């Protein structure tokens, strides 16, 4: 059972999406696990063949419990003896597997699902996995009604809303209490002139169709990701009494959920994505947060969190760090404010950016450098839009 959040102690297996004997590749969704924050698709981290499913759907097991046994590529069936107290990850093959002499028959691709275009779109909207849908008709073609029925059938398994909201509240309470109990926060704030980036964005969006337009937060995300590279010490985790930097910037985006509560799933590799990719990822993430279908890697991977409450009319937000992360960056409302510039008072679009950071991992000096780097990056919006290269920030 993977840890799908720092505060997760146990999870309930909702369903398997694999069968014994099936080949899997790193990144495949193999199971759905119910957590306090909703149903999460669990991905697998190794290639191999499924040997045995140990936990049955409906069982609740602690984090770290063995869910299934996996045979590494080339390993003989039965080598991973069932019943052993296996570690959370599959037993690796003792030595690199020899390449089989005989060319194995390549696995035939699963037959293409026969489904009407309208039903396929509805399934995507409702988050229904087509592999779980049984068409009613003899011809085996999935229709809208089949999808609606599958979505209906899935509902009783999901927790009741009231109950679910209460559990999410409990999860947030646990994580935030742990944060304030253990993490010595320090807070910094600075005003950034975002006139250049907002002007650039307005011009850029004029060239785009409505569906391709960028939200103001997107260039900010990019600038945050680049600034995290420029000034180390904020992107990563505090584990075992030390700071462990993250290899890439997986930017946790604090997203409010309908009906209350929030989650902060990751936009992976935010430092190396361009603005269009970030916009697409953000839109996708928000849709899935509201649809309740996040992937396990998105829940567990964020290396830092960004919270933007500007749209709610708040000028300054001081965040509470989500452990074991070491920093949370806050963006407030963009307002036109009077600024002195070369002896004149001029109106500029200003944004208050804040940093709440873990004093065990960093000091105020580097925190100030980070906010200064962020401010500098936001003066060069063209550069933000051009680069997918994390080395710009110097």
């Amino acid at each position, binding site marked *: 059972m993977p840890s799908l959040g720092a505060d997760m102690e146990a999870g309930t297996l909702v369903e398997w999406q694999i069968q014994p004997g099936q080949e899997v590749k790193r990144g495949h969704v193999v199971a759905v696990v119910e957590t306090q924050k909703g149903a999460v698709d669990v991905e697998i981290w190794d290639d191999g063949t499924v040997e045995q499913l140990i936990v049955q759907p409906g069982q609740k097991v602690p984090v770290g419990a063995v869910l299934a046994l996996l045979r590494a590529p080339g390993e003989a069936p039965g080598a991973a003896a069932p019943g052993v107290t296996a570690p959370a990850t599959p037993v690796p093959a003792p030595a690199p597997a020899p390449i089989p002499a005989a060319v194995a028959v390549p696995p035939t691709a699963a037959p293409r699902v026969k489904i*009407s*275009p309208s039903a*396929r779109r509805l399934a995507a909207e409702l988050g229904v996995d087509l592999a779980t849908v049984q068409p*009613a*008709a003899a*011809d085996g073609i999935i*229709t*809208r009604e089949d999808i609606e029925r599958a979505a209906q059938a899935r509902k009783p398994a999901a927790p009741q809303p009231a109950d679910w909201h209460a559990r999410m509240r409990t999860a947030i309470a646990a994580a935030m209490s742990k944060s304030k109990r253990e993490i010595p926060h320090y807070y910094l704030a600075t005003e950034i002139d975002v006139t250049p980036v907002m002007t650039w964005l307005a011009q850029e969006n004029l060239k785009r169709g409505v569906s391709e337009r960028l939200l103001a937060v997107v260039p900010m995300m990019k600038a945050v990701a680049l600034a995290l590279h420029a000034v180390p010490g904020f992107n990563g985790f505090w584990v075992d009494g030390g700071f462990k930097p993250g290899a890439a910037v997986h930017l946790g985006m604090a997203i409010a959920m309908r009906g209350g509560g929030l989650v902060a799933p990751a936009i992976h590799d935010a430092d190396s994505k361009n603005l269009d990719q970030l916009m697409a990822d953000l839109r996708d993430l928000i849709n899935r947060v509201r649809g309740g279908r996040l992937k396990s890697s998105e829940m567990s991977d964020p290396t830092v969190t960004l919270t933007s409450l500007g749209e709610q009319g708040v000028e300054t937000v001081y965040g509470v760090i989500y452990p074991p992360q070491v920093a949370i960056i806050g963006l407030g409302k963009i307002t036109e404010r009077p600024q002195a510039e070369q002896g004149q008072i001029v109106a500029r679009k200003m944004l208050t950016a804040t940093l709440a950071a873990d004093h065990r991992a960093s000091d105020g000096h580097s925190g100030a450098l980070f906010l200064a780097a962020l401010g500098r990056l936001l003066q060069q919006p063209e550069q933000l839009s051009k680069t997918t290269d994390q080395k710009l920030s110097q």
Partner: protein
Amino acid sequence: MNAAPAATRTTYREALRMALREALARDPRVFLMGEDVGRYGGTYAVSKDLLEEFGEERIRDTPLSESAFVGAGIGAALAGMRPIVEIMTVNFSLLALDQIMNNAATLRHMSGGQFSIPLVIRMATGGGRQLAAQHSHSLEGWYAHIPGLRIVTPATLEDARGMLRTALEDPDPVLMFENALLYNLEGELAADAGAVDIDRAAVRRGGSDVTLITYGGSLGKTLQAAETLAQEGIQAEVIDLRTLRPLDDATIVASVAKTHRAVIVDEGWKSGSLAAEIMARLMEQAFYELDAPVARVCSAEVPVPYAKHLEDAALPQVPAIVEAAKKVVGRRV
């Protein structure tokens, strides 16, 4: 409170004649010409008694030469008149196809907009009267292929009464196709019935399960099929296209977005046809709305037969429309 204008019982033929009479009376530039429109009163008796009322100058019998009298109509339109040309059947209009396509449809474009052809051509179309393969085809879909023309297909008394006036106001050529089986259609027509739009398709019956798209002579059969389907629990929406060019895509797509299924009913043939064009547009504009392949009920791909039982078998009929709709709605019935 004013009482609603009284409705009168009348026919499609009579509604067309009312429209012609009104057009002739209100605009001296309007005149009617064609084969037997005068002394004989029209092959389908649409212009009966008009010769006596309006005289030979304005109700003109022509020789049996479609190319000549359609060309004369184009010339009159160029010179500022508002001619209405009647062609006996769509099969014969092929003799005038050169005039219609190479002159009427193109002169505005070829003159850089200097000339327009405000011409209305009326003709009978469709089978079902045992008139065999030279008088029974539905070729309006061919004309709908041609840029520069507007194609209208009145299928109700209101449209028979109201489309002509709007067509005469169009500065470009309008072809009006009257399915010959409709001339005896009887019904109530409001006393104040007048001009109607010729831009939009009409939803003739609302429904949620399948969209039946049709026009002209097939509208009645399609409405009958919808009634049969309703008795079996299938709610069919019936769209009367009214205008085949330009097609009202928005109405069609909006309906399919609601029902997710469509059947096209057209007396034309399938190959390279209007029905094929509508299917193509549904692919282009409503692919993600579809919950089943789009179906068609069209005429068999033969010259329309003379023998009654063969002709009935060749043309779209109510049972075939019901069957196609049930197949598309399919398994849930």
